[in-house]
């Protein structure tokens, strides 16, 4: 084979590889386009061209922010702005009124042979319907919870009237059965309350009532409300509260709710030993800990701890049954505060929940409060 033949063969191979690559690129349903470091679009797939109701050649060469957002400069909400800073992949929900849709956009950096970032690939998925469905689901849960409350209150009061012997005398066995019924209607009421709470949080309908709060006071009060239950179970409560931690910008009721859920869980799953509650200064924030010497959580179950209605091999002792939503609500509340919550556990030894709240930084916190 001479040189010309060899070159011809090589060109054919490259053309085939390019065709195959284009076929893959164009068969993808996601909207994909590549931009250089100056935001100029250099390549698009068919899904992208269809999305803009035009031909690929009419898009290539345009600046991304002009085409997508109708702006003369980069759109500040674009994940590419973050990628430019840290040269990492970012995935975000993009809600630009100019587009009128909700897109899930992943921006990944492209590096040249020298290792410099030469641009980025955008992959966008239209999730508008999915988001609408989620909103519908939240509204539905909220309405259902409303409607459940009235019949539930009637059942509860009906049982109470009979237990109070207002319609007439009842025997011990009847009292026992009615008390079980009453306990379970209360449990159902708690589930409805939690369900409503989480649907409101997830629908973004909960606004935090923030103020500068002294976390040590909030922790002490929340712990105090469990003193009786802890003693009753023969457990020891050990408090380690740093009085000098100062204030954080948070919603007292919501942080109390988080602590109540964490301490309540610790009490429920601990049959002997102690429950440690602490609160410490950590420079840019405050760290609170609730740890127990209870049954613990297996390694496989740990990642699922904050999921809704997650139940696994832990057996609670006597006392109020949980709703399966408490930890999920706790995580949502801490997320709303831009904080962090995590769990460590060892089966048979105990569980430790930690959450961190940041100090007040007006620029960061004010828009969400």
């Amino acid at each position, binding site marked *: 084979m001479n040189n010309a033949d060899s070159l011809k063969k090589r060109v054919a191979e490259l053309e085939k590889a390019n065709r195959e690559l284009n076929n893959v690129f164009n068969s993808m349903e996601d909207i994909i386009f590549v931009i250089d470091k100056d935001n100029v679009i250099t390549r698009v797939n068919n899904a992208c061209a269809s999305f803009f109701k035009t031909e690929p050649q009419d898009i290539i060469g345009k600046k991304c922010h002009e085409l997508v957002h109708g702006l003369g400069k980069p759109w500040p909400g674009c994940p590419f702005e973050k990628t430019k800073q840290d040269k990492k992949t970012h995935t975000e929900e993009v809600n630009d009124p100019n587009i009128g849709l909700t897109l899930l956009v992943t921006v990944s950096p492209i590096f040249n042979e020298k290792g410099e970032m030469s641009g980025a690939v955008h992959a966008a998925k239209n999730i508008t319907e999915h988001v609408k469905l989620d909103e519908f689901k939240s509204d539905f849960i909220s309405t259902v919870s*409303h409607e459940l409350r*009235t019949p*539930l209150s*009637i059942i509860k*009061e*009906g049982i*109470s009237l009979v237990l*109070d012997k*207002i319609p007439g005398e009842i025997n011990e066995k009847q009292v026992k059965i009615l008390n079980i019924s009453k306990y379970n209607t209360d449990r159902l009421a708690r589930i409805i309350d939690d369900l409503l709470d989480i649907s409101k949080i997830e629908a973004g309908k909960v606004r935090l009532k923030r103020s500068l709060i002294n976390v040590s006071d909030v922790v002490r009060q929340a712990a105090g409300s469990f003193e009786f239950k802890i003693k009753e179970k023969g457990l020891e409560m050990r408090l380690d509260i740093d009085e000098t931690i100062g204030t954080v910008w948070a919603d007292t009721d919501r942080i109390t709710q988080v602590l109540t859920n964490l301490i309540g869980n610790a009490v429920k799953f601990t049959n002997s030993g102690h429950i440690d509650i602490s609160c410490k200064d950590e420079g840019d924030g405050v760290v609170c800990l609730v740890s127990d010497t209870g049954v613990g959580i297996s390694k496989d179950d740990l990642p699922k701890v904050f999921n809704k209605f997650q139940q696994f091999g832990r057996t609670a002792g006597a006392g109020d049954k949980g709703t399966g939503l408490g930890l999920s609500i706790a995580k949502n509340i801490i997320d709303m505060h831009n904080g962090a919550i995590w769990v460590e556990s060892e089966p048979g030894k105990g569980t430790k929940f930690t959450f961190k709240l940041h100090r007040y930084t007006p620029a960061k916190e004010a828009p969400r409060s």
Partner: protein
Amino acid sequence: MAKRKILIVDNEPDFLEVMRTRLEANNYEVTIAANGAEALNHIKNDKPDAVLLDIMMPDMDGLEVLRRIRKMDEGLPVYIITAFSTGERFKAANKLGASGFIVKTDDLAKQVGNITSALDMSARFHKKGK
């Protein structure tokens, strides 16, 4: 001493029935109304000593009924029956001069007990004052 009269307004007959039983056990004479128009008629004709008024009712809601009651009688104790102890309606009822609230999912017996104690105390105070 004659029994004091209380009017309960709710479009849910079963709720009216359990509340009636509880209040009669607390020695009250109970009248019931299933909607706002009926409630306003009862207030005009029967002159109850207090009203328990549901906030969520079709046609005329509890807030409108409360607004009209306040035009007729500023001092009549009106307790609002609600499913939630927060929210816009709760705030509006407060503004319109609700005397208190009954939260449906909380312990009704305890709440009714608190209300009847407050009404008893207020009746004794007014009697002394006369």
